[in-house]
């Protein structure tokens, strides 16, 4: 009896360890990257002026975020990204749903949407400067424009690809057009709409960073990266790049979590 108990306990110990190792798997890639980075930096293969060690970079990052000037740049970029995203979402979701609920309407503007969706938004920056100048508003509008098309496109497709049998079910229960739209189409489109919102905020961040570099600004991570590069402050450049990476990653995670909460039926 005692041996059985002991073997149980040791098995659960192994279980615990292997669970713990499993959970650590995503870190493996990170550690390898930092290891390789560190090796290259200390080996002298690359000019140390161009590549600081990961430790020096992380040190700059932490100092910059907690005591230095990086935090205001960070918030400026976050604020622009969210303003652009909100602008795009407030316009894009209703327009997309409206377009999607009439196939004729959607097909008549489909080419335009596809065309501008395929045009790199950065190519439009000079044009936006002409119209809106080099103000903060200009950067937000450019980012909002590129996010808008993605959001419209996805919301429209969400509505158009609604399950026909659910629409029929609502119809046979006596729902009129308005109720079918409000009770079925709108909710059916939500999973796809969320994909649009998630890609929308990603592209908004990309364009905000590019616009900050290209148009120039007082504060912002894009401006900080290009400035650091110009004066060969490479530690700050790498640290700023890492911050934009973290920002992009967490925005994506935020929307995945929101999606799971709000669209609980997605994929079920």
């Amino acid at each position, binding site marked *: 009896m005692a041996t059985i108990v002991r073997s149980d306990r040791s098995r659960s110990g192994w279980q615990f360890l292997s669970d713990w190792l499993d959970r650590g798997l995503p870190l493996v890639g990170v550690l390898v990257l930092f290891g390789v980075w560190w090796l290259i930096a200390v080996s002298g293969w690359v000019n140390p002026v161009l590549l600081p060690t990961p430790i020096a970079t992380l040190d700059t990052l932490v100092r910059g975020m907690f005591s230095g000037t990086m935090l205001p740049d960070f918030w400026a970029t976050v604020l622009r990204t969210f303003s652009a995203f909100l602008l795009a979402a407030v316009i894009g979701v209703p327009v997309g749903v409206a377009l999607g609920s009439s196939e004729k309407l959607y097909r008549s503007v489909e080419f335009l949407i596809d065309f501008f969706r395929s045009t790199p938004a950065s190519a439009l920056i000079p044009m936006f400067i002409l119209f809106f100048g080099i103000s903060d508003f200009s950067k937000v509008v450019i980012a909002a424009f590129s996010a808008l098309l993605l959001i419209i496109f996805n919301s429209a497709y969400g509505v158009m690809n609604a*399950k026909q*049998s*659910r629409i*029929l*079910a609502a119809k*046979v229960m006596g729902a009129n057009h308005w109720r079918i739209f409000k*009770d*079925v189409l709108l909710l059916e489109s*939500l999973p796809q709409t969320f994909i649009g919102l998630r890609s929308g905020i990603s592209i908004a961040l990309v364009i905000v960073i590019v616009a900050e570099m290209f148009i120039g600004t007082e504060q912002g991570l894009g401006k900080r990266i290009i400035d650091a590069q110009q004066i060969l402050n490479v530690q700050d450049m790498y640290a700023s790049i890492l911050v934009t990476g973290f920002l992009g990653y967490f925005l994506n995670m935020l929307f995945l979590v929101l999606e799971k909460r709000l669209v609980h*039926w997605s994929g079920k």
Partner: protein
Amino acid sequence: MNSPTTLSTIAPPASFISVKNLCKSFAGAPLYQNFNLDLPNNQLVSIFGPNGCGKSTLINMISGLIPCDSGDIQIHGKPIRRARIGYVFQNYRDSMFPWLSAYDNIAYPLRIKGVSDRDCRDRINQLIETFNIRLDLRRYPYSFSGGQQQLVSILRALVANPEVLFLDEPFSALDFETTLFVRDKLQEIFMATGIPMLMVVHNLEEAVFLADTILLLSKRPTHLVEAVPFTLPRPRTPDTLTSPKFIEVSRHCLDIFRQEMRK
């Protein structure tokens, strides 16, 4: 109108469904040509026939889900639009609303009609008690098993007191065990309410087991080959499956089906 009636010449409302001179073609190919049907009231009628003969198309036209090219369809002597109908879809997963709880799914037909929350609750409680449903209806449909989901969708079809219940292959998305469960529940519901039902099935045993009348359809262009009566008293149990009467009717249906396939 000089339509030859197939089952009987009794005028509505003695028949719960009456179809006259129904025509429907798809892409120029006729599916139904001057199709006639009269289904005697208070019956559970099942439709059986070869693949592609338009079984589902027929009940979709009778229930008004898809239009027919010409012809006259009446439910209890009224045009479809004025009849209260319940419809159970083949695929419960794609016909329930996954964003609503099971309770709100069942209540949906009542909400459309503007019934108050309180009356909804009373009606649903009444349904649950009548049919002895033991499900936590606050859960979402996708958290139930297939059979339970189909049961919820049957309740949804029943909640607004339909005059007719249509069922489009209600068991085909279920495994054998849950088919037995849903079949028993359906029989219980039919015995308790007496709501006439028209059901498409793709399995001969299921077609015969619950039915008062089995409609055997031909290959397309589709016509009614025979309306076979099956009069064994309810409740029908697993023993029914081995009773001489059941075997006789099943064999007869199978013979006709095979004759039709050879044509």
